[in-house]
């Protein structure tokens, strides 16, 4: 790169025009900007020039560079992917992308309801549609992701019950468990409950033995991390309630057209991740967390998140919006607020709202039913392959565990060979659940058709020969 002799005018910096800069310095009566840094002691001033690559000043050069980097990636749609485990390839409706690309929503932030009425309404509507899906009256403005939603839901239960122990389903994913463990550590002792090696279902005998008057909460996932439905959910909730504990259930919102929401089987707090609802995977950057409860002040006052509410304005016929019970937040009370609130995932909340409005009740039923049928078909086809078996019997929503132990081969080796055929096999569970040996979690959604599933089955058969 040649050394630049003349000053650069930066397109993102209007006042980098030298004459403008001069005029402004003059207007503020200084010779150089350096005078404003006078309070920064010499001893901590950075001397010299940051060692960074020479800039790509033109947009064309920048695009070429970034596209060159991205060319080294293979998008899931360029292959045939069966990956899931919390981040899912569903169809993203064009209108979802259209709305979340709108500059007004994309670049707004912390405005009042008066300049940002639309942002407040869109998030209130998101809360309201999630409320219908979850059959609950209170839903938060999204927190970061489903991990955070679960961790916060557990702490809410701890604060409500003032007890100090939590019982968790043993099939929870290890990353999610890591987040929860770290987060609730000062307040809750966690105990993982055993699960049936045949069905994966929670060991209810162990639950009954472990629960006590110290138990704040019983937590499980439905569908579980390993894909099967926790079919005795109502019984679990009942055991929790009989012992004065709350029941927190993490759910996949896209399943709720066909599967009952936690409120219908005794769940006190529902939580989960909205990424499946019209949001791209973004290499894991597309997450947003929801927490829902009944409309009980004891619960509402424990939310750390913002809760947008509807109210009249001084003009008849207008809907106004604002923050419900703002005084519980860390914005109002710093460390005396409930946990903390800040920038999280609002744009994904708006997007999930668009998704639910597009889908409507029938769309949510259709997608749930269609996914379950595809999964059933996939399980049947894949189980026919010699040495391959379904690990947990039961009802599966969009994921299921394939057991490769009888093939004598490692999941890693099998998946490497699938990759050569342009197929991303499921998530390798061998390190995460060593007790399962060589097993993998496969995901099938509405984007897969029969040919895709048959291709997977044929390819697996070939690579296992």
């Amino acid at each position, binding site marked *: 790169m040649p050394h630049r002799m003349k000053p*650069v005018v930066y397109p*993102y910096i209007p006042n980098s025009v030298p004459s403008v*800069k001069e005029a*402004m310095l003059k207007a*503020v009566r200084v010779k150089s900007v350096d005078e404003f*840094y006078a*309070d920064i002691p010499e001893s*901590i001033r950075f001397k010299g020039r*940051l060692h960074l*690559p020479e*800039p790509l000043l033109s947009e064309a050069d*920048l695009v070429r560079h970034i596209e060159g980097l*991205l*060319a080294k*990636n293979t*998008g899931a749609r*360029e292959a045939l992917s069966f*990956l899931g485990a919390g*981040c899912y390839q569903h169809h993203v409706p064009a209108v979802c*992308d259209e709305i979340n690309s709108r500059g*007004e929503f*994309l670049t707004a*932030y912390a*405005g009042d309801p*008066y*300049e940002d*009425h*639309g942002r407040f309404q869109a*998030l209130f509507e998101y809360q309201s549609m*999630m409320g219908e*899906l979850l059959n609950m*009256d209170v839903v938060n*403005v999204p927190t*970061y*992701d*489903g991990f955070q939603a679960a961790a916060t839901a557990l702490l809410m239960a701890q604060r409500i019950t003032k007890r100090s122990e939590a019982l968790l389903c043993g099939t929870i994913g290890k990353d999610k468990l890591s987040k929860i463990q*770290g987060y609730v550590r000062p307040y809750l002792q966690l105990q993982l409950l055993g699960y049936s090696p045949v069905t994966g279902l929670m060991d209810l005998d162990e639950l009954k033995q472990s629960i006590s008057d110290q138990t704040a909460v019983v937590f499980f996932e439905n569908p579980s991390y390993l894909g099967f439905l926790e079919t005795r959910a109502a019984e679990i909730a009942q055991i929790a309630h009989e012992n004065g504990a709350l029941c927190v259930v993490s759910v996949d919102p896209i399943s709720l057209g066909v599967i009952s929401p936690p409120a219908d089987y005794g769940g006190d707090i529902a939580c989960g991740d909205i990424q499946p609802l019209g949001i*791209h*995977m973004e290499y894991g*950057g597309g997450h*947003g967390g929801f927490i829902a409860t009944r*409309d009980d002040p004891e619960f509402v006052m424990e939310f750390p998140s913002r809760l947008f509410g509807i109210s009249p304005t001084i003009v008849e016929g*207008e809907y*106004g919006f604002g923050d419900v019970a*703002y*005084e519980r937040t860390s914005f109002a*009370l710093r*460390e005396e607020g409930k*946990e903390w609130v800040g*920038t*999280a995932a*609002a744009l994904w909340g*708006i997007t999930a709202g*668009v998704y639910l*409005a*597009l889908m*409507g009740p029938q769309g*949510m039923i259709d997608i749930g039913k269609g996914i379950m*049928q595809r999964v059933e078909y996939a399980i049947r086809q894949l189980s026919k392959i010699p040495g391959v078996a379904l690990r947990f019997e039961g009802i599966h929503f969009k994921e299921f565990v394939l057991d490769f132990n009888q093939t004598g081969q490692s999941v890693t080796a099998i998946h490497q060979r699938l990759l050569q055929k342009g197929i991303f096999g499921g*998530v390798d569970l061998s390190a995460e659940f060593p007790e399962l040996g060589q097993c993998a979690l496969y995901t099938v959604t509405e984007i897969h058709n029969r040919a895709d599933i048959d291709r997977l089955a044929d390819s697996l058969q070939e690579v296992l020969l």
Partner: protein
Amino acid sequence: MKPIARKPIPRRFHQARWDEPIIFELSQPGARGILVPEVDTTIEEEVGDVEQKIPQNMRRETPPALPEMAQIHVLRHYMRLSQETLGVDLNIDVGQGTCTMKYSPKVNDQLTRSPKMADLHPLQDESTVQGILEVMWRLEQFLKEISGMDRFTLQPPAGSAAIYTNVAMVQAYHESRREGQQRDEVITTIFSHPSNAACAKVAGYRVVTLYPGPQGYPSLEALKAAVSERTAALFITNPEDTGIFNPQIEEFVKVVHNAGGLCAYDQANANGILGITRARDAGFDLCHFNLHKTFSTPHGCGGPGAGACGVTTALAPFLPRPTVEFDGKKYFLNDDLPYSIGKIRPWYGVAQNILKAYAWIMSLGADGLREVAEIAVLNNNYLLNKVLEIQGVSLPYPEGKRRIEQVRYSWEKLTNETGVHSEDIETRVADFGTHYWTSHHPYVVPEPMTLEPTESYSQADLDEYAAILRQIAQEAYTNPELVLTAPHNSTVHRTVHEPFDDPEQWAITWRAYKRKTAARDHTSGA
């Protein structure tokens, strides 16, 4: 024809007013917004009605009462709501001080929409994601250079989560030295973001908050009095929310270090000091950046953002897992970190925003970043001069104290003389098509206003913003009713606030609103 005489500044503005119904009111039974791919008939025949296998008490019998709408109606509804929202793209967004509302380049948004970014699954084989891993690795190198720190994690989803990540690393560090029990206090300052206090509390710490002395920042003596063998860390912003740089920061760090504590630099907003001073140079052990502030990624109505935490080698073992590594040939994730604090969020961070921040730095380079800082500071001081010409506004703390990239002003005089509060001005500003923020609570500076012009606004933009404030101040002195009854040109008028704090009335969903108002309707009708 004769030349058209243009309207004077401030411009006339009226926010979009669509009287848009709540989306449920737009429902047309039977309408569809999008269709779902049908199951192959052969699958249908083979597996049948799978949902009937769901045990009855878990099968959803009543469909969710979502709106039923044709696609154009969903689109139109949200287009209207977007019009009733005022992002950076539309306004001179200098009024949200501390939040660095700068221009988010469109090209970066566009680049992340590539299926080679948007449709990547985080567990794809590393050979299929070398591009994004390279971006993450390279951004880490940039941030190391910008801060002087030794390692970074890009995992935290936003600024407060990054603060929490730093708190968790501080805790792990002290525990590794068997001082976890003893060091149970975190010190912060009232002009540091509330999340410094709140995150420390969540992690179980007792929080000690220092208040400013006469100079606008806490005195060294106040710090010394607070520091002890119980101190785990100091979490501090500099320049603080006032825009004043604490010149004793090195001494602050030394005092805490001498007591065995760590120092974490909240650099959510580092916009005014890029290439000027670095966290490491002042002796900090940890720092964090918000990629959605200093590094330009869009604020998204309140996220997704992205946070980045930098640490010294001594703290690096505690970083969240995994880290992104490069062996000279390929990029890979290292999950084998026995001392790691574990996961802060799923996967590796908000990858699309990491890409946007990377692209932004690549478009500017070292000189460009320095230009960002210098123009942000110049703009701030230019606006400061303009604002101080306005009747009723003042600058707290002693004269001669410089302001870096933002200023916390006070309207105390105006309030005393007119009865108009800063919060009233905030509401009235909406009538002029822009935004304004008072400050975090508590209002240590009376009747506060916090402005941060960043590098994205021109001289004319700043003149226009000052003209709006000048006009509102004038109104306060001559016709305060006009301000007190604002907004006048917004989508809606003043909201009735009582229901928001009344459990009997608050309505956080449409279903709650219908239930609660139906009861009321019935009573009044009877």
